[in-house]
């Protein structure tokens, strides 16, 4: 007889027996239900976080590092020092390029503004984007990929007054932002040659499109709505240095030493690799994933042990019954199967209730927090896990039951 048919044919009396043995199986089923609700939602959240963490920032993450050069003297000549810094850093062997920027992806600090696809646009036509003020080396120092148009020309780069409005020379925007601003004829290249307009109505010609560059803020509405502008202020500049593969760790102290050599009227602060910046940005996501994973492991253990405990108790309590079944012709496999089917029925009952509970929990979380609703596909995943758990947990007690002697049937209590 094949196992599936057995499962189906055995379920009837086992189920009827279960409904009469009251509290024990009910408790386990309830426990399974809550376990499923927790596990399905936790796996979903973990999955969501991992998926978000895996998004590329657009930068050459492994080979860049970033730091601030903070002036500490009133007479500090920012323009001259930056020019000297850039010349000397770029000349270092192993450095691919260096530039300054108002921020880097996921660095947490930066600027944003509204841009419209035409002058005199209505308020709703303005879209927010993070902007990176940089120079003609910016794209190369970031390591972003140009997919249409061209890089900034040296002539377009303007070092503006520290307190003046942001520079407006020309712009290179991300593909995502281009698609957003110019929806009908979006796509790489179509936006090149057009202009974006700030709230001051000045046209900023778009000279290029990059594949991807995330904004400095992880929780920003549209993570890839970024724009590079070809002007920068010498105030509190952030330096971005990109190295040849494998050269970064060697070059960091070298660049620090070089900075001190060029001017002692500033402090090199918050020197971090882009890897560290992105790692830190996702810190809470990672922590949540780790914590939820531990919660899943623990709860699966607890529920599993609960099933083991109850099944062991049942084996002890049903010694005589098992002996009788053996006397009536049950093989060892029949006894194991009995306990497996029983456990399967309990976990299935738990799974049915638990599916509803999972959706309820998700509904509550969606309403209370800013979480996406549970993808229903995580419920079957959780149910599968529950089944495996239920069968695995009951295997040892079931095997012990099958080893009981048939002669137990004739033994008086």
């Amino acid at each position, binding site marked *: *007889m094949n196992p599936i048919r057995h499962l189906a*044919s*055995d379920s009837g*009396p086992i189920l*009827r*027996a*279960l409904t*009469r*043995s009251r509290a024990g199986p009910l408790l386990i089923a309830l426990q399974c239900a809550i376990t499923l609700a927790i596990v399905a939602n936790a796996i979903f959240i973990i999955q969501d976080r991992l998926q978000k963490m895996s998004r590329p920032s657009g930068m050459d993450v492994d080979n860049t590092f970033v730091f601030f050069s903070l002036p500490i003297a009133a007479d500090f000549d920012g323009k001259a020092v930056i020019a000297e810094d850039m010349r000397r850093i770029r000349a270092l062997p192993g450095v691919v390029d260096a530039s300054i920027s108002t921020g880097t992806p996921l660095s947490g600090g930066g600027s944003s503004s509204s841009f419209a696809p035409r002058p005199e646009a209505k308020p709703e036509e303005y879209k927010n984007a993070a902007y990176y003020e940089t120079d003609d080396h910016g794209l190369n120092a970031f390591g972003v990929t140009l997919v249409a148009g061209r890089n900034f020309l040296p002539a377009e780069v303007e070092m503006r007054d520290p307190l003046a409005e942001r520079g407006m020379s020309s712009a290179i925007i991300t593909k995502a932002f281009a698609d957003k601003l110019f929806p009908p004829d979006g796509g790489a290249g179509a936006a090149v040659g057009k202009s974006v307009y700030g709230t001051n109505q000045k046209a900023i010609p778009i000279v290029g499109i990059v594949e991807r560059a995330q904004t400095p803020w992880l929780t920003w509405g549209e993570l890839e709505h970024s724009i590079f502008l070809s002007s920068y202020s010498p105030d509190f500049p952030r330096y971005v240095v990109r190295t040849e593969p494998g050269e970064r760790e060697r070059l960091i102290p070298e660049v620090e030493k070089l900075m001190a050599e060029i001017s002692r009227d500033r402090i090199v602060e918050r020197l971090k690799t882009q890897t560290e910046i992105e790692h830190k940005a996702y810190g809470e996501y990672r922590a949540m994933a780790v914590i939820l994973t531990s919660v899943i492991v623990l709860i699966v253990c607890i529920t599993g042990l609960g099933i083991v405990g109850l099944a062991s108790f049942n084996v002890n309590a049903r010694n*005589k*019954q098992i*002996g*009788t*079944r*053996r*006397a*009536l*012709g*049950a*093989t*060892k*496999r*029949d006894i194991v199967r009995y306990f497996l089917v029983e456990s399967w029925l309990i976990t299935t009952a738990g799974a049915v209730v638990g599916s509803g509970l999972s959706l309820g929990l998700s509904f509550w979380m969606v309403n209370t927090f800013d979480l996406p609703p549970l993808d229903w596909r995580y419920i079957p995943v959780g149910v599968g896990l529950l089944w495996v758990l239920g069968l695995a947990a009951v295997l040892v007690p079931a095997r012990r039951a099958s080893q009981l*002697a*048939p*002669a137990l*049937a*004739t033994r*008086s*209590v």
Partner: protein
Amino acid sequence: MLQMTHISKVFRTDLVQTHALRDFSLTVKEGEFVAVTGPSGSGKTTFLNIAGLLETFDTGTYLLDGRDVSHLSDDARSRLRNEKIGFIFQGFNLIPDLSVFDNVDVPLRYRGFDGKERRRRIQGALEQVGLASRARHLPSQLSGGQQQRVAIARALAGTPRILFADEPTGNLDSLMARQVLEMLEEINTKGTTIVMVTHDPELARRAHRNIHVMDGQVSDFTDFSQAAAARDALAA
């Protein structure tokens, strides 16, 4: 039907070894109703366990229905119990969480009968013991006598060749005990071999033949079929 020759069985613990059966030989013919008596500790339960294939033995040979069962695997013994042997226990051994119907169903499922066949047999067996109307009851809702009759129905449903009864009336009052006994006699007249273990001489006298076990050996035979024939002859 059942032929045991020079069977012995030793239980060993760290401290002692007990000879439960030694050089035990017994033959039961087809259609016989045999009672096995003896004081407690005499080995009659061990005999029943071995005869009913619930336990293995150390030496000797055992032919059940003409087949040597000395070296069968656990699964083969299970199958044999299921197909050829019926059990009636002193404590009834009904499964408390299952209804009367489901209790009788237990061995039939192990047999692999389809649903229709199982229903037919359960129905027939329950009618035979007069409990067809109680099929949906739980054992706890029945009297002791009724429970033992369910157990008999369970033993009969698989149409066994031989029925082993272990103190079948031990937990019953005399009226119910008589009913159960009459039922066993009726089953026996229909051709099923019955081996009954009891310490009650009154009960034992109802069998065709009485085997007295002492210290793990057969110590005495009484053939009541001949005695009864003699008595009948005398009366006539």
